[in-house]
């Protein structure tokens, strides 16, 4: 659990104050969660429209603060809203793209910037994960590894049981492990002469590996 000085109000306290009419408290919550939620939306469905979706997420959360109930934690509640907005956006854009697919063929090839971005995404593990995992699995993996959210809170975001989330994570790991298999074989061969640590093999020398 992260250390919090006594005079720093918790997310839940700020949410309660905001519910009682204090807009400044909600502004503080926006400051705390702006980056994590934007990051989540960029990776899980939002793409280039993530900033608009972020705005929509906070506006909706602010309008529905009456529905937020303690002792439920604020972060899962907010990510639940963000996820739903991301899913709706994905469905909307997919319908639009299906309708415009013929126009896309007629207009020609994608731009060079789009090709480079796509190639980078293809090489990234998260990009690969987005292609092989379902939306639920992707969300569970993101919240688990990036937001360090416990399985019970992920269950609240996904509307599933705790056991269901554990199963989702197990299946997602099983699908993702083959993607890092080349790294494992490299680690076996390169690790022998100089045991310089796992992080060097990952290309992230200064990375701290937190214990989940």
């Amino acid at each position, binding site marked *: 659990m992260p250390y919090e000085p006594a005079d720093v109000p918790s997310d839940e306290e700020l949410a309660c104050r*905001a*519910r*009682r*009419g204090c*807009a400044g408290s*909600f*502004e503080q919550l*926006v*400051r705390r969660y*702006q*980056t994590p939620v*934007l*990051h989540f939306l*960029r*990776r899980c469905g939002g793409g280039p429209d993530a*900033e608009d979706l*972020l*705005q929509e997420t*906070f*506006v909706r959360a*602010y*309008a529905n*603060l*009456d529905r937020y109930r303690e002792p439920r934690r604020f972060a899962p509640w907010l990510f639940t809203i963000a996820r739903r907005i991301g899913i709706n956006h994905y469905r909307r854009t997919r319908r639009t793209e299906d309708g415009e697919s013929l126009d896309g063929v007629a207009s020609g090839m994608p731009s060079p910037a789009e090709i480079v971005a796509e190639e980078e995404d293809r090489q*990234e*593990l*998260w990009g690969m*994960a987005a292609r092989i995992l379902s939306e639920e699995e992707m969300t569970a*993996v*993101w919240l688990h*590894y*990036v937001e360090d959210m416990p399985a019970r809170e992920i269950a609240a975001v996904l509307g599933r049981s705790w056991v269901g989330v554990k199963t989702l994570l197990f299946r997602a*790991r099983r699908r*993702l*492990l083959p*993607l*890092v*298999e080349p*790294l*494992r074989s490299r*680690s076996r061969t390169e690790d022998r002469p100089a045991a310089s640590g*796992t*992080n060097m*093999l*990952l*290309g*992230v020398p200064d*990375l701290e*590996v*937190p214990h*989940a």
Partner: protein
Amino acid sequence: MPRRRRSRGEEILAARLRAEASRSRPRFSEGLHARVCRAMLQSRPREPAADRAGVGRQRWPRGAVAAVAAAASLVVAVLVWRGDRLGGLDSPWPSPLPDRAALNPGVPDGESLLPAELNLHSVAGLAAAVPNRIDALVDSAIAAQQWASLDDDAQLTVRMLADRLPFDLASSLSMAEPTASP
């Protein structure tokens, strides 16, 4: 429950996922923050939850309704007692007090008594009898279920009390009082 030990592959996977996420993590943008806050405040200025709940509905608190009903019962009981004691007319309820003639043998029947002439016995007995009368009145006039929803049936209760109690008797007594007292 013993915790499952993570394999080397899982550790590498977790580290790689975290590393990539930290590399792609967006920086905090004050411009975006201002935009979100502006949109948030423009969408709907929040009112405190307690204020919103009270808007549009003004209800009497249940305690106030019960207090009004009790006060009305008390006033009616006092009026009836005055009519009974001072006017010398028959009361609709049996009196717990001893007979007036027995208490005041020197005073002829039909003549009203001045307050100073009432002896302490009768006043004490009367004071003790008033709560009993009100209880009996309420028990006889209002069923227990009606008490439970007094807020909704307050008007009905008052009407029942008014029907049951001899207001006409009390008013005739108060009209006759100046002639009876010197």
